């Protein structure tokens, strides 16, 4: 009887966690302390983490972890208050309490050192782009490869003019804070200059009210620059709805009713991309699409005559306007890409030569 009671007691009393330490979480906005410990060698059901501020009496429970974990982030600690921690190993019987950690204090940081590589590459890419911008300003001749989708713009506009049919320009479904939308608005400016010159009707339906406002001003300015301010009217650019599929239905309706000779689907698209592109293909329009949404690219490539893939979308306004300064930026992009390519090749070779340790360094 005595022996079995003693055995039960031995089983219930477990070794407490040891080596409890508390440090401020680095590179964060404060209010967080990382608590680590060495797990109890005995079977436990989990750990309870307690915090005591300096000068305080009570130990407050700040969280629990499972039995296999040996760290916890206290995300509710006040900044600037020194606190220490204890960890309790939980069992079916009495919990085993660790010794308290040293004091730690949480402070918000002014720089996230994890982003140093990103900052370095930002400066390198920025330098390359600005260097080629300056070269272009000085009149250096810059070669640019042909982009079939953009070469087709003139042809598509000419076709619409000959057929006496309008051109439909869909500037994507995203908001103005999406860079793809800004790139699309830049292309719209160039397209509008040409439609103004040829006297081709232009239709620009919008999903986002801010994009609508910017697109309207852009088209108005393009008509003025083309010397045809009289040809601009408020109804060229209009707002439809901010509902995704209601917008898709409205644009499909325009494609079916107005029978545009050319459809531009340029910007950010989601599930509606194929609905728009297929309706356009069925209506017999020449279609030029462009997006940086990787998941929508296959749909556009399948259903459209020309597709601007990824970066071509961002190069389009420079390509169409042929402004040397803008072309300089594209050259900078190309050299940045070449740099990335070299780094990938060097990294791969080093990884193959030295295996995993080099990968960890990179």
């Amino acid at each position, binding site marked *: 009887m005595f022996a079995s009671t003693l055995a039960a007691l031995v089983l219930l009393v477990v070794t407490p966690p040891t080596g409890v330490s508390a440090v401020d979480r680095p590179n964060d906005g404060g209010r967080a302390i990382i608590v680590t410990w060495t797990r109890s060698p005995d079977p436990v059901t989990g750990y309870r983490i307690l915090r005591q501020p300096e000068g305080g009496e009570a130990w407050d429970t700040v969280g629990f972890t499972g039995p296999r974990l040996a760290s916890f982030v206290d995300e509710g600690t006040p900044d600037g208050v020194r606190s220490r921690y204890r960890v309790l190993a939980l069992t079916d019987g009495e919990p085993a309490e660790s010794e308290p950690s040293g004091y730690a204090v949480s402070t918000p940081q002014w720089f996230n050192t994890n982003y140093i590589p990103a900052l370095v590459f930002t400066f390198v890419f920025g330098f390359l782009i600005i260097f080629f911008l300056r070269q272009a300003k000085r009149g250096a001749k810059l070669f640019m490869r042909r982009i079939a989708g953009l070469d087709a713009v003139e042809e598509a506009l000419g076709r619409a003019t000959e057929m006496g049919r309008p051109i439909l320009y869909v500037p994507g479904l995203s908001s103005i804070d999406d860079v793809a939308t800004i790139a699309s608005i830049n292309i719209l400016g160039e397209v509008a200059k040409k439609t103004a010159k040829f006297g081709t009707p232009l239709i620009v339906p919008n999903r986002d009210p801010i994009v609508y406002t910017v697109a*309207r001003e852009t088209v108005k300015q393009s008509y003025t620059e083309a010397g045809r301010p009289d040809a601009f009217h408020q109804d060229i650019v209009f707002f439809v709805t901010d509902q995704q599929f209601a917008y898709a239905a409205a644009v499909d309706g325009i494609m079916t009713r107005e029978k545009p000779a050319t459809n531009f689907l340029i910007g950010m698209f989601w*599930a509606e991309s194929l609905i728009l592109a297929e309706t356009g293909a069925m209506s017999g329009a020449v279609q030029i699409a462009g997006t940086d949404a990787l998941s929508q690219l296959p749909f556009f490539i399948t259903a459209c005559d020309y597709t601007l893939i990824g970066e071509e979308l961002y190069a389009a306004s420079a390509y169409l306007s042929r402004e040397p300064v803008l072309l300089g930026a594209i050259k900078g992009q190309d050299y940045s890409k070449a740099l990335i390519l070299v780094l990938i090749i060097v990294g791969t070779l080093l990884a193959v030569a030295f295996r995993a340790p080099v990968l960890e360094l990179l």
Partner: protein
Amino acid sequence: MKRQLPLLIVLVVGIFAAAAFLIPHPIVRSVDEVFRNDVLRIIAAFSLVLGVGSILRHHFIKIKRKAAHWPFSYITIVALFISAIIGLLGGIDPNRPGILPTQVGGFSFHIQTLFSNIMVPLAATMFALLAFFMASAAYRAFRARNFEATLLLAAAFILMLGAVPLTRIVIPPLPDFAEWILAVPNTAAKRGIGFGVSLGIFATSLKILLGIERGWLGGGGS
């Protein structure tokens, strides 16, 4: 001044937003949040007024000119006013009714009811069309007109076969090969495009910050 002021605001706010990405301090992050959420929301509210004005003008012009299918414009205008009145006067929270009663007996015409029973099924119907469009697009894509189309056809054929459970018994290595196509060549191409897109976004942002690209200002202005 009309051009200089927006350019200056973009330069200052743009550099601040980039810096806020690197600085986790709550003072910087809270100001960044104000720009991203509050300021953008205020601008969006003003733009929405312009948007509603645009819809009305567009449809009134269609009615006036008796353009193709102009009677539908009446439906749009009437629907816009009805939902605006119900939403504004009937309230948007079903638990906090507004001054307009939105329930007659068992019949509710609350704005949430209208949205759930009209807008949602209509949107789902449009989305459902995608299945048919996929079939027609696939038919177009799978005609082996040139080398690229043939390659696409072959890859798609292997992937489709790889997804069929019976293939694992009939041609055991095919599902793994299909998986490899997705994991290696497909991922490599996607990452390549991803690099180009990232650099394109970076260059465009830089051009906007430096005032070289001014399309967003409402036209050239260069």
